[in-house]
């Protein structure tokens, strides 16, 4: 817990520095002509405050005596969280390439069948019903086209039918 607190505080400090460096592309000081601060002032000084507060947390973690104990992650369930996060990232990465209608059912299949250990019937129903719902809700009703990637040609007859 203590270590995690320090790592997060240090990361925030690094992030603030990165923000501050970016913000300096625009004037960060007082602009005499128009009155008021320049375009970079808001992000710059807010990040500076963030930097100081995160520094304060870091300093406090070394000085304080009473520290929250216990591990940061629950060792039993950490692997679950990590695998879901990885699956999510893989699914998102697949979307532009294989299309939402392949990537999302794959994700559902992994989640329900492999991760959740559900039966074939439930998995099958959800893996088929979800893309059908998404197609009719987003593409047909809202006219929002989801990325199709490689599967684009297969949708041409559907477009012809519904648009």
């Amino acid at each position, binding site marked *: 817990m203590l270590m*995690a607190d320090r790592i*997060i505080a240090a990361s*925030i400090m690094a992030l603030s520095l990165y*923000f501050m460096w*970016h913000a300096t*592309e*625009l004037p960060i000081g007082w602009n*005499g002509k128009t*009155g*008021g*601060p320049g*375009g*970079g002032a*808001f*992000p710059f000084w*807010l990040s500076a405050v*963030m930097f100081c*507060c*995160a520094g304060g*947390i870091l300093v*406090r973690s070394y000085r*304080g005596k*009473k*520290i*929250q104990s216990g591990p*940061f*992650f*629950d060792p*039993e*369930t*950490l692997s*679950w*969280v990590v695998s*879901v*996060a990885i699956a*999510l990232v893989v*699914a*998102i990465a697949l*979307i*532009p390439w294989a299309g*939402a209608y392949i990537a*999302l059912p794959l*994700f*559902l299949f992994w*989640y*329900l069948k492999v*991760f*959740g250990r*559900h039966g074939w019937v*439930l998995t099958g129903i*959800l893996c088929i019903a*979800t893309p059908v719902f998404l197609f009719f*809700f*987003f593409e047909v*009703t*809202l006219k*929002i*086209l*989801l*990325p199709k990637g490689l599967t684009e040609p297969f949708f041409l007859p559907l477009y012809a039918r519904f648009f």
Partner: protein
Amino acid sequence: MELFAHLADGFATSLSPLNLFIVILGVTAGLFIGAMPGLGSVNGVAIVLPMTFIVPPSSAIILLCAIYYGAMYGGAISSILLGIPGASTAVATTFDGRPMAQQGKAGLALIVAATASFVGGTISVILFTLFAAPLADVALAFGPAEEFALVLLAFTTFVGLGGDDVLKTIIMICLGLALSTVGLDLISGQPRLIFFDQPGFYSGISFLVLAIGIYGVGEILYTIETSKSAPSVTPARLTFRDLWYGIKEVNKLWRTLSFGSFLGFFVGMLPAAGATPAALMSYGLSKLMSKKPETFGKGAIEGVASPETANNAASTGSLLPMLTLGIPGSPTTALLLGGMVMWGLVPGPMLFIEQPDFVWGLISSLYTANLAAVLVNLALIPLFVWALRMPFTVLCAIVLVLCIVGGFAPSQKMHDVWLIAGFGIVGYLMRKADYPMAPLVLALVLGPLMEKSFRQTLIAEQGNIVAFVERPLSGTFIAISVVFFLLPLLKYVKRSPRAQKVPNEPAE
């Protein structure tokens, strides 16, 4: 009398078949979302918002408010049947709701919760109706200086009253504000903070992306970690005798209920407080005022009724500053505010003048939503008992898919979907380290207003920074802000430094 005319006009809007259908749909969805452990009103609104493009803007807002309302009712269901609060707002309901369920009185507890919620909702909607127009009139006199001072006040309430670690709260506020400056500079139009030269950042970071990331993906990750085993559902039988008995019992509690409603309404208006603390305060105070305080915690009907009135009243209360001043009173209303801005309905006093049909339609829809919620709630209790048995993995999988698609839909850019995944994972880690999430979301929504009003004032006053304190209203707001800001410091000086660990729950 003008008020009644407005309200009657409003009912003409909200009782149209489409809006009536939408209210019923919204409260039913909200009830389910609220009843699911781990998902509350803020998660529901964040996940559903991208899908509301399907209806006209004013109906979309009515839908989201109905979800908000329904979720407040729904939170009690899992508090009673599972012993796990369905949303953080229903924590106090578990204290007596769970013992009641264990004594075989789950049905009665659900009836009491629903009727008490209805009383809280109704009293607070009446208060809302009375206060909305006068407050909007006052707010008409606000210039940019007052707007800035008010936003500052909203943020300092987190520092002074939030109860979280002060340094972490300030970090989250600054982070939200800094993220809100990504994109184009408001005044000069120059690009700024374009990370890694990604073109996606030119349009800024949408509040929706942050909200879906934190309240969708982050919440699911958090729930996966904390839910080790499936909880057992207490069966609830519902009889008309119970219903009659429950209503009679609630009828005896007028003093507690009206007190809880007023308390909830005013606590709900504060950005940093909201429904969770309101419910806890109401529980504590009704125990103090009760003739039989020893029954509390062992299944007292009063102990179920008092937090439920307060959390419903608070959800209405937090709508008041959002609608009249444009300052949201809770993360959920911050999302509603963002949604309204997205649809071109900018909340604030001008909305009452320019879009009276919408405003009064929305206010009157709160009455119908409240009535619909209590009826749907009581009618569908057997369905909720069944739904709570749904395996958690199914719910998580569907929610994650909705997060991905819902994140993509508004802007149709994969950039936003990646941001959602990033915010979700980082948000999950930061939440575990006790960083509060509510100030972050509020800051991102209010950031543009804060910067714009600050710089507009200074341009108008030729760089004279004293202008903020010279104007009486903004001066007062700033003075109160300073007090809030110094509150933690005073506590620190009074008591020796004491490491406090505060449970990290999204305030709603």
